């Protein structure tokens, strides 16, 4: 066959779909994941545009409107010192989403390089790193985060650091496992055979091939991190007053259940909806990126 014939034949074929485009197509077919994604985007927009969409200043007190039930003036009611609950829920989205994203970023920044090193190098280094990872995994996520936040001091930043470090072992384990599977593939052998350095093989050939499971885990861990931040703030170890956070709002609300039940409803509903959306998106991503897992 001449080159011209081959070109003509190739033109007749349907274009080859890239793996990412195929994954996106699969993801868009899953209604739950699409709804989850839309809700996540909506909450991100609420967090970013909070100053413009919030009806009131979230920290402004109004002693004439203490514990007022939901009304046209205050859609979600007011709290124990007359602050608008809707405004606090809107601004609270910032703390929750920021905590989710930053904690996962910390966990990825620490976990992926360590897992990559452990899985790629193997031997005694792998053994040592895995024992340390097992030791961290043995301390339950929330207990370790509480202990760290306790020693670092209560603040949203420290809570994010504590959650990020506590979530790191999951990413070390996942990355290491994936690297061990990928590093024996033919294309890695080929890259080695043509004289690529270890750094180049690890970063240019292995890392791009383990991104899909990491993406899925990152989405699901964001949901867990949002709950963890709310839990730490609920215990008084996260966002400090008067700055709003869904967890700290619930902490105060539990003392006014008989007088102002609305104070406890909306922050909780917000956590539930955001976490559910991340879980739906994570499940959808897993199905889209790894159909065998279905």
């Amino acid at each position, binding site marked *: 066959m001449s080159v011209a014939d081959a070109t003509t034949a190739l033109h007749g074929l349907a274009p080859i779909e890239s793996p990412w485009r195929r994954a996106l197509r699969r993801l868009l077919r899953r209604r739950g994941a699409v709804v989850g994604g839309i809700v996540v985007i909506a909450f991100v927009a609420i967090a970013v545009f909070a100053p413009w969409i919030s009806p009131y200043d979230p920290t402004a007190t109004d002693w004439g409107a203490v514990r007022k039930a939901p009304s046209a003036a205050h859609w979600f009611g007011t709290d124990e010192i007359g602050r608008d609950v809707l405004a606090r829920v809107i601004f609270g989205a910032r703390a929750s989403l920021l905590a989710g994203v930053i904690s996962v970023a910390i966990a990825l920044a620490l976990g992926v390089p360590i897992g990559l090193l452990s899985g790629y190098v193997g031997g005694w280094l792998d053994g040592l790193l895995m024992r340390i990872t097992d030791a961290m995994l*043995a301390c339950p996520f929330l207990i370790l985060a509480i202990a760290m936040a306790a020693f670092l001091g209560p603040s949203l930043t420290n809570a994010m650091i504590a959650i990020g470090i506590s979530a790191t072992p999951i990413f070390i384990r996942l990355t290491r496992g994936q690297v061990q599977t990928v590093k024996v593939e033919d294309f890695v052998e080929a890259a080695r055979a043509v004289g690529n350095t270890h750094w180049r093989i690890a970063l240019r050939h292995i890392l791009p091939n383990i991104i899909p499971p990491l993406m899925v885990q990152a989405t699901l861990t964001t949901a867990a991190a949002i709950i963890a931040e709310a839990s730490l703030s609920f215990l008084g170890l996260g966002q400090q007053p008067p700055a709003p956070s869904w967890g700290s709002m619930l902490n105060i609300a539990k003392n006014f259940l008989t007088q102002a039940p609305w104070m406890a409803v909306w922050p909780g509903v917000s956590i539930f909806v955001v976490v559910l959306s991340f879980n739906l998106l994570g499940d959808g991503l897993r199905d889209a990126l790894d159909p065998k897992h279905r």
Partner: protein
Amino acid sequence: MLTFLIRRLAIVLPTLLFVSFIIFGLQQLLPGDPASAMAGEERDPEVVAHVRKMLHLDEPLPVRYGYWIGAVLQGDLGLSLRIQKPVTELVLEKLPVTIQLATMAFLIALLIGIPMGVLSAVKNGTAWDYGANVIALWGLSTPNFWLGIMMILLFSVQLGWPPASGFVPPSEDLSRNLQSTIMPAFVLGNAIAAVMMRHTRSAMLQVLTTDYVRTARAKGLGEGKVVGKHAFRNASIPVITLGALEFGQLLSGAVLTEQVFTIPGFGKLIVDAVFNRDYAVVQGVVLCTATAYLLLNLMADILYVLANPRLRG
């Protein structure tokens, strides 16, 4: 089996050693002088000096670790500076409360999660399956402290049902003890029920497509017998072992549930210790939780081998 046990212990022991490094290392996170931080708000120089001497803070780090781990190995977790009681005593006092709560939560999780998982797998692709998955997703996405607050609001405030908070020891009055723990146990077991449902569903779906299940059906056995006797018995092996691991998570979840329902357990102990800057108690609770978690892990592995004849060798 013995070789397996020795091999597993050979992994557990160094892991425990690293756990002790991490927990001891937590002390190093304290900003500034640890003795001043631990001595409390007043920073009385005498107290600071006492704390420094008691914790050997003038010694190099490895020597301090040696003192600390030496005491821990003899069952001495240190002294609570606030309550002036040995941490071991406090832990032993509070642990039974959390174990009761976690056991009840685990039973509730099994009673909800396993039947739901079986139903979901048997009715795969139907409205039952869809409904069970929605309930599981709800369980996984609901923060347990919020669920606790909502249940107090609905049952205790609106309907006047079980007491909203407090704890009655079983030795004092069993019926009131159950009344005071049933709601927190449900709240705590809720998320684990969802996890158990997912595990059971996936294990059952796998087993239901195997040849021996097809053969059982071909022999003309009723669907109940096929599912209950042939499929579930085999699917339950991974579910039981994963369940043992989930029990460890309950210890962590109890922190929040105990806080919401004012139950004087392990979780309340660590939270109170955090606010009172009682760092020896924080370290003691984390160490005990991590050790319990590792032992549960080991137990899960042993159960898995015992339940699976092919692995027994």
